């Protein structure tokens, strides 16, 4: 016999606290007939277990909530559907156009991505005869592992109120390791495609990888030094990030800049979309991919961008901290987190409207020259800041 009430209380004690739900509940109870139904539903129980209550409780149970809703899969999924659409709309605006619209004119074409996804889904998947068949199909799917695992360590909460699936002292290190793993899969996919352009694209990807990876790691390291911890739950409260004056971007803007450029390079956004440059190598690694497999490859870059933007929010923009929204309780942290992440992502994707593309050697010299210098400087700066803060306080 399972100790149901014990289990329930474990879940209840560790759940996201949203006062609004109680307000709604009480409001519903006051409505004559509906109130009765609601009360009945909530009390309805099988084997002494209130079904509806425990479902709600389970959804709000922190490990579940953080993994599935914010900042986990649901957020990621919504981002993937909304972000490319927002990108197309915003870039369209910059270019004096309107972007996708006619599909759903009243909401400005917001379901465009849905149509594209389904179209890819129903399209033929071609495996050309020169490809290495198994790897060709496996790599895009395997790519999901390093892309999805970092979600476990993203903290969408604020100081003292972590919203993170797994708390560990090595969270940042694990995330960096997983992020660093991603290009391997792209290179693998390109190699399996066995095409000239994907070969060139793979080589370019590899070069770019080396160029941004080191500054990227050093920039994160600088922040770890600054906060004195690499646990994502504690990073937020590191230097009391609840005030925006203590955000990472104020304390160490150099690391933030390095991180942002590295992010653009890592996600192959303009001006660094060198591995995938469509005018030059026709989507490089993905040139041979068709149908839904290309669809996956197409959104993988956005997924990666989400993970990196989430790290950036945690490290530099105070995670979920922000003015408390009444009645939302801990959910308000989650909302601030999503908003901040979305803004970072929008800035990132809209670089496309502003910059042309660098050449590979120029990007490499930026990576190994300017960025590396900046990253090292950021590290030194962090040390100095830590010492100064230590002296003052």
């Amino acid at each position, binding site marked *: 016999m399972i100790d149901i009430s014990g289990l329930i209380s474990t879940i209840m004690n560790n759940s996201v606290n949203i006062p609004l739900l109680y307000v709604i509940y009480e409001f519903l109870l006051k409505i004559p007939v509906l109130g009765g139904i609601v009360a009945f539903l909530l009390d309805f129980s099988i084997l002494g277990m209130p079904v509806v209550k425990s479902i709600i409780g389970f959804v709000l149970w922190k490990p579940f909530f953080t993994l599935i809703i914010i900042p986990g899969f649901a957020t990621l999924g919504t981002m993937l559907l909304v972000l490319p659409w927002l990108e197309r709309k915003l870039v369209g605006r910059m*270019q004096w156009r309107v972007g996708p619209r006619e599909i759903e004119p009243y909401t400005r*074409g917001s379901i465009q991505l849905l149509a594209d996804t389904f179209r890819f889904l129903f399209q033929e998947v071609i495996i050309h005869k020169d490809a290495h068949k198994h790897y060709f199909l496996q790599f895009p799917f395997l790519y999901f592992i390093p892309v999805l695992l970092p979600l476990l360590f993203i903290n969408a909460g604020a100081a003292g109120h972590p919203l993170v699936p797994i708390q560990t002292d090595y969270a940042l290190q694990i995330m960096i390791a997983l992020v660093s793993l991603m290009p391997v899969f792209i290179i693998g996919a390109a190699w399996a495609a066995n095409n000239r352009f994907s070969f060139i694209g793979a080589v370019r990807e590899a070069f770019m990888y080396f160029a941004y990876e080191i500054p990227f790691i050093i920039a994160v390291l600088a922040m770890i030094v600054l906060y004195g911890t690499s646990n994502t739950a504690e990073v937020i409260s590191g230097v009391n990030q609840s005030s925006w004056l203590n955000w990472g971007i104020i304390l160490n803007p150099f690391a933030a800049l390095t991180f942002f450029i590295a992010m653009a390079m890592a996600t192959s956004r303009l001006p660094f979309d060198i591995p995938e440059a469509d005018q030059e190598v026709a989507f490089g690694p993905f040139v041979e991919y068709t149908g839904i497999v290309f669809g996956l490859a197409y959104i993988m870059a956005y997924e990666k961008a989400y993970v990196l933007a989430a790290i950036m929010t945690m490290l530099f923009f105070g995670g979920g901290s922000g003015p408390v929204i009444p009645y939302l309780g801990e959910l308000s942290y989650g909302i601030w987190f999503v908003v901040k992440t979305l803004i970072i992502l929008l800035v990132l994707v809209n670089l496309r409207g502003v910059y*042309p593309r660098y050449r590979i050697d120029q990007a490499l010299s930026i990576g190994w020259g300017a960025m590396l210098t900046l990253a090292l400087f950021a590290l030194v700066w962090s040390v100095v800041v830590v010492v100064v803060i230590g002296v003052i306080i």
Partner: protein
Amino acid sequence: MENPNEHIDFLESGPLAPLKKWSAKWSLWPCHFITSCCGVELAHAFACGYDGERLGTLNLGISRQSNFIIIEGTITRKMARALKFVYGQMPDPKFVNVIGACGERGGIFWNSYNITHPSDIVPVDFFIPGCPVTPESLLRGVRALQDKIMGVDKKTIEFKKVELPFEEKLEERMVPTSPKIYAPTPEIKVDVKRVVDWDFGKELEHTLRKELKGLFESITITGTNTIAIRTTPESLMEVARKLKGQMNFDHVKSVNVIEVPHERKYIVEYMASSYSVEELMPVLITIFTEIGIKNPKIQSLMSVWEGANYSERELHEFFGVWFEGNDWMGKKFLLAPDTPDLPLRKEFKIPEDRYVFEKDVEPEFMVPIEPPKDLYTPIWEEFIEEAYDSDEIVVPIGPHHPGSGHLRVTFRIKGDRIVDALPEPGFVHRSMEKLAENKLYIQNIPLFERLAINDPVNMNLAYVRTVENALGIEVPERAQYLRTILAELSRIEAFYYDAGIFSLFFGHTTGFMYCMAIREMIIEPLMHISGSRCGPSFIVPGGLRRDISDDVLGMIDNITFAIHKRAKKFESIFVTNPVTIARAKGVGVLAKEDAIRCGMVGPFLRASGVNYDVRKVAPYEAYDKLDWEVTTGDDGDCLGRFLGRLEEIRESVKIVKQGVDVVKGIKGPILSEDILGEYKEASSDIKGNFFRVFGNIVLPKGEWTTITEAARGTTLFTINSDGESNVPYRVRVMSPCWMNLKGFMEAVKGERYADFWAVYGSFGYFPPEADR
């Protein structure tokens, strides 16, 4: 093609059919399959003026990622293979729309030897007529396709057969006689002597006689600025050497072969000119010689004038003349493997244009054209072998590539450096020179306009000036100014197109959109004037088709201001962008000597530091009465070429402004009396008298050559007339992009792989113009 609607059937099958249809409808992604000049309008349809992305139609990716081909106009025999290939590579379900008259039944090129009908090659969903189509109708075609996918069958147009009352109205309409060569054995003479008032020419003739002593047969002044030297095949080389060495004729402007079958001979001619001596700049020296039709061999002058290289290859394919010393003899360069051999020979006949049909003769409108059978356009094998012997990789770009247009270039790349580049033009070779031999002089105006649909007026002007030159017509002053204004508008238009492509090649779509927006504004007055966005055909021998009213002139004036503001925005987002400068500066350098050696023309020559502009050197129209400067640069790199053209836009705007001011004060006819003859009432509008006036133009006997500065450089037209037929005997077009191809390839060598697009964009290479 068993079931042309297989793709629709697929969408309608299965339980998920509504979802399938819905998603296919809103996600038609066309692949980058630019095939011909209608591609310019495609660019407009997806740029900010019309924004095809509204319909969920995103121009992204190559064949593998897309599900929709928009075939833009002509599919030549060479391109037909690419089309079939691309179609085959696309995942099902896939859709095909064909835009432009050419794609249906050939349009203006219906009787060309090098075109095919796309509907024979792939199953077509919709044809969208127009030459070029307007962006509206292109998008309308997308709409129609969406309806088709959803199962709505909308017949937009119903065709009815009409009986044309040809016979009764014939007298009254004055239908021109069908074009044809009258005499079976016309007399073709290249050096017809003309008496002109040209003192320098006499001096020059004297010098030439002295320098070339014993090497020539005759030296004739054939017109202002043109001298013809007749020589023997043996001494051709020597003459060329002397001309280059002693007389500074450092580049060749045209190579031409004229076949005279009834005299069993070819006339081979080279036209040389000079970039280094100022007085010689406007002078065109033609050296020509005659060779027998059997086993026609002649020394290639490639070693003297490198610019002749590609033209010799081309003429070898057209006529079979063997240029000894050119390493490309016996190989295909411009034509497809299955194009008829030696198509420009007179014995190769194409279907005739006719206007008056005899009762029982079936007209040849529908030429059945065999679609090509094999799918393989081979890359030159030795090139590949050589590459594999060393540790280089071979990368072919195009004709279906997001960054190539309709040109195939095969690279040998070592590391990231381009060791060698092998150009392969001809994907839009539509045989204009042959077609022109079968059309009336006046009909050739729209034909040659299709050389560069984004620079139509200059192409138009270049041809018309040649005809005028031959007929000796003086254009009235008002018409001169108006033509200047139009030509400059067209120049601005072409440069912005190139700038747009340049930014697109850097992945900068915003710059592209801004340029297209500016073009949209320039197209507006052209549309007001002639009713056509990109093919006005407004300039006719003797002047213009009709007068331009003062409010349209006012509109042009306003637009010059409006452009200014938008151009500022373009400059701030693209031109001054640090990334652009980093990418373009010092890349693809073409030194002055190289530019001259390759026979570059236009802004690309000037960017390398040669001060040569036909508008100044041999002024035509009203250019010498207006105040403007020639733009030259010294760097000769991509940035220099790009900025140079932006500078020229400013000068052009200046010219347009002045022109508008002046022309408002000039009243008078816009058509010359010389050409109107008895139809004087048409002097301000040709409407109603068009064929009466122009239908039967016959040029005097001889060869007529004119150079005109089109947007991308000097355009040279040579017309040979037998003096009695209403069609030219031979027309030779040297379009600027064709001239620039050599220099383009030179500039690419040694650069990085990614730089190819910087160089490509900076040369504004427009394949339909190059391939003719």
